[in-house]
């Protein structure tokens, strides 16, 4: 492996770490499509900030696009709760429309600059080692810095809000009544997911963001019986997929985020077949008489 290969695996692994940690809660809260929605909704936000500042991967972009994503999801939530259209229809209405707006923005105003349709769809992970910034006199990939900060922030978020997130995901009414500020924790989760989706969008594009959030977490759910272990296993699955995906992409000369997504899905199928809550185990258990 070349240093660039290692760098790509590290960036993908860090991204997997933070995505899987939040993805675990999203899977259990039945909000698995939230990152997908946000990753589509942020595109017009990113274009807008780009048009205003001329920058693509800056703190301003992340914050601006996050705010845009949060606003869109809040609007979606309002539309859903109003009952004017069904929940799934609202999802299908709002987010593709925003993505279309983003595509229009790129082709009309920003084509040829550092933002193009390919990177919006497939991400820039492959070129991440080439885009560097100066940090304490060293040239480090911008992606590594951004993803690293996002990962640290995500870990802090999950550790500090462990109890409200844990309790409100499991039993929202109890959590709210306990004074754990469960609803506030749920809203903060949304904001952090939106921010991370923006960061992930930059590396892996709009389509595969949801894979990084959800697939390792869903895999881990099949293997574990405690939330803590589930999240650790999800992070591990994310790193294994990142390494395997990067190797595969290099071997067959393909898109790295794509092969990472594929490796991730492969792990899921393995867990589905062999995991403690998987198919083989279930078939065995259904033969045993009920105790």
């Amino acid at each position, binding site marked *: 492996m070349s240093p660039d290969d290692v760098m790509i695996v590290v960036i993908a692994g860090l991204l997997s770490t933070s995505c899987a940690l939040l993805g675990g809660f999203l899977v259990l809260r039945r909000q698995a499509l939230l990152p997908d929605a946000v990753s589509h909704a942020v595109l017009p936000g990113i274009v807008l900030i780009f048009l205003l500042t001329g920058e693509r991967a800056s703190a301003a972009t992340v914050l601006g696009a996050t705010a845009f994503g949060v606003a869109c999801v809040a609007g979606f939530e309002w539309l859903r709760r109003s009952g004017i259209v069904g929940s799934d229809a609202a999802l299908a209405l709002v987010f593709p429309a925003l993505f279309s707006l983003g595509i229009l923005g790129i082709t009309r105003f920003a084509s040829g600059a550092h933002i193009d349709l390919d990177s919006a769809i497939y991400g820039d992970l492959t070129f991440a080692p080439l885009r560097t910034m100066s940090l304490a006199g060293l040239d480090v990939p911008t992606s590594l810095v951004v993803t690293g900060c996002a990962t640290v922030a995500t870990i802090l978020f999950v550790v500090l809000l462990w109890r409200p997130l844990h309790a409100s995901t499991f039993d929202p009414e109890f959590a709210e009544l306990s*004074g754990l500020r469960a609803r506030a924790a749920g809203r903060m989760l949304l904001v952090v997911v939106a921010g991370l989706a923006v960061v992930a969008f930059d590396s892996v594009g709009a389509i595969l963001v949801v894979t990084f959030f959800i697939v390792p977490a869903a895999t881990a*759910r099949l293997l574990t019986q405690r939330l803590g272990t589930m999240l650790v296993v999800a992070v591990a699955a994310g790193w294994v997929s990142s390494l395997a995906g990067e190797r595969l992409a290099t071997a067959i000369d393909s898109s790295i985020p794509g092969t990472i997504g594929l490796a991730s899905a492969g792990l899921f199928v393995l867990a589905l077949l062999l995991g403690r809550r998987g198919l083989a185990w279930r078939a065995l258990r259904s033969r045993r008489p009920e105790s």
Partner: protein
Amino acid sequence: MTKTMTQAPAALAVHELSASYGGRTVLDGVSVDIPAGRLSGIVGPNGAGKSTLVKAALGLVPATRGHVRLLGEPLKRVRSRVAYVPQQETVARDFPITAVQVVEMGRYPHRGWLRRLTRADDELVAAAMEQVGVADLAGQPIDELSGGQRQRVFLARALAQQAELVILDEPFTAVDARTESALLDVLTGLCAEGRSVVAVHHDLRTVLDRFDHAVLMAGGIVAEGDPADVLTPANLEQAYGIVVAR
């Protein structure tokens, strides 16, 4: 035990409470005082507003009007002193958690976001699980338990919280008769210690046989008081709209 119940503030005092649920007004100016130190049952037909009354009183459904006192205080001052056992459907079914972790949540209201559980907390958790007969299930994942075992675990959580008022929403659905009886024994025991228990329930027979106090609802309050006085054929006909033989 001395009979000081009449001086104690009501376990749950609701005054002119209104609440809507999904755009429909379910409660319209309901007032009721549920006495402390008793096992009280809220009964009535489906859609009578039993659960909404309890949820609005606990701030889980926004009240549009009225005010509520729990143990004589507003909710925000008594959160840790009030335990709630929700309907099983509102709890995530497919969640990776063990029985003992559920019961430990009963200590969260006392420890907040970050303070570690102490040895004393662990002892309360173990004692609560012992009391409802689930000590041997501590390490079991919750989704591998039967309905009755699950409900015992959730009651253990309320016990571990050491609340003065325990409110349960339909605690005996999907529970076998033996568990129901065992759980009722525990609830009766709580009342004997001077704590208050309020359960939304649908089985009139149990309320008549085992509860100290009954509130019969059908939109508003039809009757309340001693179960034998509340669950009369005339009241039940008014609440359920059909003639009910006792």
